[in-house]
């Protein structure tokens, strides 16, 4: 590796950069920002915005092909007559780069002035305002005023680019990031520029429009407000939104995301850079699947079925916990009449407590999770739509393969052997445990966030929290342990499930004492070998790869998903 590193000087700082790296990235290593629009680290370099112009010099070579040494006993540096774009210039040994010389500053001012000539003064309306590179760079590098007095060129303002995206051509600065993304990453070459000069316009190829599952990424990479997502258009200004680092719960890939919320309402979800998982992209189906968080029908309080007519009575948490514990206490250790269906959409901590409660305290044997399987694409979307299948396996909740015990549970209820069923977060009616079977049960306890057939039939319904409302971890398909953070509070008195399980454990005489999610994780790390030595803060924002001890389980998962027949 050492021989592939070159040394260069950027703004007087010595930088050792890998060979082949461009100057924008090399400057980033030195902590220097080179402004740019068209360059994107994950996209091909085109160099058409000219914002990253820098002054590049090379040592003067003597006739002996060796650097000439000047009177100050340093190599003589020859600067080019013109500036060079940083994005398309690779580092070289002995190179000297100025990113803040008067020449560079003047060049940037010129570029900014040209970019703003035809850019409309839309900022008060524009959704990009607040996260707009044009705004930021015109403050940082622009001249502060315009000399342009003529009429601006007007272009179409509202053009639909596919069903999900709105294009404002006036705002477009023709950086072509979207064109390259659709062509190179999303694999649908459908965008391009037509017309010339000031009239250049981004448009779809005739008869085509972006319709992949990754289109919305172009709204993220668009440096200005030209491409905006219909889903978020005019909904909220970004400066009101609180950013919470999270993980997408919609498939086993576990794309790293940011949840943007205001006053307890999540308004959008965007991808977060993590080269080990999703680079800086995410699929549209995952991105748009956040609305259930703020569904008005969310279950907000524990309830008990008070009559055969289906009327429900609201309970406080202590009452609900006590009543359920009273019903479960006589069954303690006689697990043969109890079954439990957990969910691989829950956090690892919740699955761990679920397993402890069901298997160790109540002694249930029939415990499993429900598999959710869809179609995988070749990029990010995984066939396993459970975000935490590996967590369910690691903690022991899931069967081998996942979901294999569900028919046995249905059968046992039918035969009257199982009298008590505890369901967490799954509409089991869809997976073989029919309504007739549920009606036969003596006790059905359901923990869920939204009402469904099962919550209607349940004797006790306990509200849960969505992924945006709790802390915890997921283990993704590649055995990467990733962390969730709470972005918003739960509605009503709903609370994260781990608290509910911990309270039940306490009532039923388990050695509870879990006061915080850290306590749960610590206990889990003590008992489960792959997690040894970890804690929630050590996981970090980008997650950690789990030790090979779980490699076998990971392989088993691949088989099991193939075997599981149920589809979401």
């Amino acid at each position, binding site marked *: 590796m050492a021989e592939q590193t070159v040394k260069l000087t950027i703004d007087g700082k010595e930088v050792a950069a890998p060979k082949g790296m461009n100057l924008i990235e090399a400057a980033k290593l030195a902590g220097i920002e080179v402004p740019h629009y068209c360059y994107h680290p994950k996209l091909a370099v085109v160099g058409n915005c000219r914002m990253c112009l820098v002054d590049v010099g090379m040592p003067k070579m003597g006739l002996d092909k060796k650097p000439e040494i000047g009177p100050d006993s340093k190599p003589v540096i020859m600067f080019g007559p013109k500036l060079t774009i940083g994005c398309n210039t690779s580092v070289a040994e002995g190179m000297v780069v100025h990113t803040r010389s008067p020449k560079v500053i003047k060049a940037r001012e010129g570029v900014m002035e040209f970019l703003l*000539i*035809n*850019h409309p003064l839309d900022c*008060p309306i524009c959704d990009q*305002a607040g996260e707009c590179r044009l705004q930021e760079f015109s403050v940082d590098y*622009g001249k502060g005023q*315009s000399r342009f007095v003529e009429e601006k060129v007007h272009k179409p303002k509202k053009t639909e680019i596919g069903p999900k995206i709105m294009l404002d051509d006036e705002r477009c600065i023709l950086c072509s990031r979207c064109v390259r993304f659709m062509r190179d990453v999303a694999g649908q070459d459908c965008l391009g520029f037509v017309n010339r000069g000031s009239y250049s316009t981004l448009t779809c190829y005739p008869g085509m429009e972006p319709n992949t599952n990754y289109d919305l990424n172009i709204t993220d990479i668009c440096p200005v407000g030209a491409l905006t997502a219909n889903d978020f258009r005019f909904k909220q200004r970004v400066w009101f939104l609180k950013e919470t680092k999270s993980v997408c719960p919609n498939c086993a890939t576990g794309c790293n995301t940011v949840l943007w919320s205001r006053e307890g309402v999540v308004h959008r979800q965007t991808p977060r850079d993590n080269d080990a998982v999703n680079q800086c992209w995410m699929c549209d189906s995952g991105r748009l699947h956040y609305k259930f968080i703020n569904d008005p029908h969310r279950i907000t309080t524990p309830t008990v079925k008070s009559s055969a007519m289906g009327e429900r009575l609201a309970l406080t948490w202590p009452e609900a916990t006590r009543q359920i514990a009273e019903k479960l206490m006589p069954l303690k250790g006689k697990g043969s009449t109890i079954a439990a269906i957990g969910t691989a959409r829950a956090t690892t901590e919740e699955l761990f407590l679920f397993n402890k409660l069901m298997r160790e305290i109540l002694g249930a044997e029939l415990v499993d999770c429900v598999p959710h399987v869809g179609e995988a694409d070749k990029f990010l979307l995984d066939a396993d739509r459970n975000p935490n299948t590996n967590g369910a396996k690691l903690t022991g909740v899931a069967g081998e393969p996942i979901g294999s015990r569900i028919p046995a549970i249905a059968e046992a209820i039918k035969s009257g052997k199982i009298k008590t069923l505890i369901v967490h977060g799954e509409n089991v009616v869809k997976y073989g445990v029919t309504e007739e079977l549920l009606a036969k049960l003596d006790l059905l306890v359901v923990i869920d966030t939204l009402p469904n057939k099962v919550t209607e039939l349940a004797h006790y319904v306990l509200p849960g929290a969505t992924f945006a409302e709790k802390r915890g971890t997921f283990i993704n398909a590649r055995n990467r342990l990733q962390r969730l953070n709470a972005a918003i509070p739960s509605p009503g008195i709903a609370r994260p499930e781990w608290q509910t399980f911990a309270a039940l454990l306490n009532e039923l005489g388990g050695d509870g004492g879990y006061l915080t999610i850290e306590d749960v994780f610590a206990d889990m790390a003590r008992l489960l070998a792959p997690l040894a030595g970890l804690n929630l803060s050590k996981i970090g924002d980008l997650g950690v790869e789990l030790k090979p001890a779980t490699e076998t389980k990971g392989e088993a998962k691949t088989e099991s998903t193939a075997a599981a027949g149920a589809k979401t």
Partner: protein
Amino acid sequence: MTMQVERPKLTIWERTYLPQILHGLWLTLKHIPQRKFTRQYPEEKPPLHGAYRGAPTLVKDPEGRVKCVSCQLCEFVCPPKAIRITPRARPEDVPDANVEKEPEDFVIDMLRCIYCGYCEEVCPEEAIFLKQDFAIAGYTREELRFHKEKLLELGGVQPDSIWKWKFKGAPPLDAPGAPKREGAGRKG
């Protein structure tokens, strides 16, 4: 440290206090015919300074259009969080559809407003003005949450020269009241 204050020596006549009392009586008597400072308030309004910061209101431009585009900067800058805006897209069939966004509702809670004027200062469209209304009263809290219609009614039409709505044919530079094109901070 205590300080001894030397008291003035009084004559016998002064020590009766009568000269001071008589002087006081004369002083109060003198004031009876003097000009009165009382302002008969509800009928007689106090003269307000031109820059007086009264209730914030929404204004319309001389052509009767709501100037606010619901950029929500006022909502952001408002120190007591008195402003709440619900934005919406404007219909596409209006003649000035280049202004794409408008407030669906614009609420200022006059009970929270502290009349600081930041909203007026921050507004990029000069759509919000602190007018001279200062006696804002009501019987319920809800009554004092002024909605868009009420705010527009209070604001009225602002006779000025903001040309945002002009899609084409901006006024010539020498037109009276035309904005200075090279104004600081204005780009493009």
